[in-house]
């Protein structure tokens, strides 16, 4: 077990180097000169441009720039953005909001997805099941910006139940609607996954054995159907956590949230390589850690899996 954990953690190193190098190269290779674009229509004087280039090491070859970036990471001094704010501060501002949003969405999609999926699976072919199946298909098909805008108009404007946008320093209530929107697609997918898995397990031999033991229906479902059905669902959730982190770009745009999505979008349009790469790397790391957690959870759910 410890060996496995150690090996998985060691894997973070090459993934980190690979991801940062690749991202850095992509930003480096993008066309256009970000410094020249800073001045807008009028442009900046050549001397100022030179000074900015020197400040951000943009006059250096690619690998030197990359090494400066690595140095910045390990000395916790990533320098400033073009606007003068420290990069670390920008990242530290954006991350918690996105993280909160992702966790809320994750909770919503898991609780409702598994709940509805279980219920539908146990009543396969009945009215509830058929309705939920069609609706979930609809939810998967709808793009985020449609559900987002519709909810804004209906729940936010017409019913006036929840704030239309989140704005700066949002609280849980104002993040509720964005979280629901973010969770929609995954909710439908988890629902369908759970349903299929439950249907499969309900007819399993060990479930019949459990019933033959004299267990009540509730206990059979809880202990023998649900737990076994969760194994594939957990795998999906692990992959999905990464999607929630990145997939929030559109949602954050709709609800005016200053999270990872918005910041990243701004940084890309300004060509601030350090901000882009740092932000993306953090997302990559979250992804790695989330999947490690899922793999460990997997072993808890299914004792047949032992990591060595």
């Amino acid at each position, binding site marked *: 077990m410890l060996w496995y954990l150690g090996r998985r953690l060691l894997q973070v190193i090459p993934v980190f180097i690979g991801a940062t190098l690749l991202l850095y190269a992509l930003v480096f290779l993008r066309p256009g000169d970000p410094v020249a674009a800073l001045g807008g229509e009028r442009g900046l004087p050549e001397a100022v441009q030179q000074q900015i280039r020197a400040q951000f090491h943009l006059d250096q070859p690619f690998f030197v720039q990359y090494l400066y970036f690595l140095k910045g990471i390990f000395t916790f001094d990533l320098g400033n953005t073009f606007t003068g704010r420290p990069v670390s501060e920008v990242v530290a501002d954006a991350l918690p909001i996105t993280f909160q949003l992702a966790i809320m969405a994750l909770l919503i999609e898991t609780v409702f997805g598994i709940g509805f999926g279980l219920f539908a699976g146990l009543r396969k072919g009945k009215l509830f099941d058929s309705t939920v199946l069609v609706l979930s298909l609809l939810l998967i098909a709808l793009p985020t910006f449609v559900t987002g805008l519709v909810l804004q108009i209906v729940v936010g404007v017409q019913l006036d139940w929840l704030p239309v946008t989140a704005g700066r320093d949002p609280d849980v209530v104002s993040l509720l609607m964005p979280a629901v929107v973010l969770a929609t697609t995954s909710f439908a997918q988890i629902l369908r996954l759970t349903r299929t898995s439950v249907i499969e397990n309900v007819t399993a031999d060990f479930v019949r054995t459990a019933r033959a033991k004299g267990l009540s229906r509730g206990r059979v479902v809880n202990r023998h159907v649900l737990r076994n059905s969760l194994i594939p669902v957990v795998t999906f959730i692990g992959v999905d956590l990464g999607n929630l982190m990145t997939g929030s770009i559109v949602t954050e745009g709709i609800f005016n949230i200053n999270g990872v999505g918005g910041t990243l979008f701004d940084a890309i349009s300004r060509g601030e390589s350090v901000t882009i790469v740092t932000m993306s790397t953090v997302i990559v790391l979250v992804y790695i850690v989330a999947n490690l957690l899922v793999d460990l959870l997997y072993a808890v759910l299914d004792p*047949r899996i032992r990591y060595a």
Partner: protein
Amino acid sequence: MTTTITLTDGSTEDAPVPAEKRDDSSPLLDIKDLRISFTTATGTVEAVRGVDLTVYPGQSVAIVGESGSGKSTTAHAIIDLLPGTGKVTGGSITFGGRELVGLKRREVEDLRGREIGLVPQDPMSNLNPVWRIGTQIDEALVANGFQGSKAERTARVAELLGEAGLPDAARRARQFPHEFSGGMRQRALIAIGLASRPKLLIADEPTSALDVTVQKKILDHLEGLTAELGTAVLFITHDLGLAAERAEHLVVMYKGKVVESGPALQILKDPQHEYTKRLVASAPSLASRRIQSAHARGTEAEDLLAEHADESATAAPDVVVAKDLTKVFHIRGSRPGAHTDFTAVDSIDFALPKGRTLALVGESGSGKSTAANMVLGLLEPTSGTVQFDGKDVATMSAKEQFALRRRVQPVFQNPYGSLDPTYSIFRSIEEPLALHRVGDRKSREKRVRELLDMVSLPQATMRRFPNELSGGQRQRIAIARALALKPEVLVLDEAVSALDVLVQAQILTLLNDLQAELGLSFLFITHDLAVVRQIADLVAVMKDGRIVEHATTDEVFDNPQQEYTRDLLAAIPGASLEIGA
């Protein structure tokens, strides 16, 4: 543990209440005119059509029949565990004088486990893989109102497991199902079934998935245990020999109806119904005493027999010779670099003479399938050689090996798994022909028709798909496919183990005929000694990767040299019965 049980004559069909012993006792379970239907897309299918069955307290009754006869359906209806759309449409089931049909869910739940226990068929799939064994037994105790603290329950669980014959029960209870062997799991399931001391135990093919020696041990144990506890047992089985050996009273079911019932020995000695007669005639465990019956099909087969008897098996030249064959698997350990070597096959020698059948016999894990895969060239030997017509397979060029595949063809155990469900039968049989570029499309089609004739299937079958065929038909297809390239050697890996007895007998007869007709040599891999006697000329008994005994079939059966072989022979169900004596 005492395992002896007196075979008292149970009730007969006409007089359901036996004369002496049970005068005063009323039946524990009484099924009258039971009808069960399944609703399918095409309409209602009646699976059980008017079944009568009586079990007295402490009695053991066996329902015998092939798959689809409705025997399991009947048993599951008793505790309302019918699968899918199954429904009791008529008749009554009374248990201890109480009507069970139409009980409320809660009432049935109270009955299950407490009054009627179940030992299910397949130990591999009947334990939930995610819970500890002890937890799964504990559940049964809690559900059935066991009063006691957690510590008391844990102690009781260990007691029950120990009682079911599991050594070191307290430690074992903390393990998970995947850490158990099949036999151990079945013991755990028996512990679950008997946890709350039910009055009736339904044992649904409790050991059909296990090796014969394990089967015998577990059935002996179950028999002793239920006799001690006074539990009535309702056996469900397809094996007549096993049924007769384990139950006082037999009920033979065929197509949803009871065709015959009565005391076990009486039915075996003097079967009345046509179906029962066929069943008795082809039960492999019983046929082992009358081996010739399977062979004796016309004079041609008898000639073959005579020939077998006269010639010593070594007279024919050897087609396949294995010399010092060894296979070692590396098993990954818990840490990097820590691995163990597992010797699956340990320097074995055997020779398969042309036109003969060599049976490799052993329990699961004995290395017999590994050996077969090396002969087929699917696994590379760690050391030693497989020679084909005197030529070492390992030294052959890739092209020669490809050509060799034409001459050695496999038939595997599971006909459900070995045919591609998306291929039509025609495509399945034609594939090897196309692969080896034999003939053009037209001549290949002719060959497929020929092959279907050979395995006694209508030619129209070739337009159908595997899911439309029965297990026996599928195995015929698999044989036809193996024969497509006119091979000299067939490697039959448990080729009849998954089939019902009657179908099994048919396939064995077919193989026998084909061997005589085409001069094929068979390498027959099986765990079932009863089948060996029907088909093999030579036997090699394998244990732990080694061949412990290698002789002609008659020698092995009449005069086994090794203790292990004797154990295997003794474990054949029905072996202890003297029929026709």
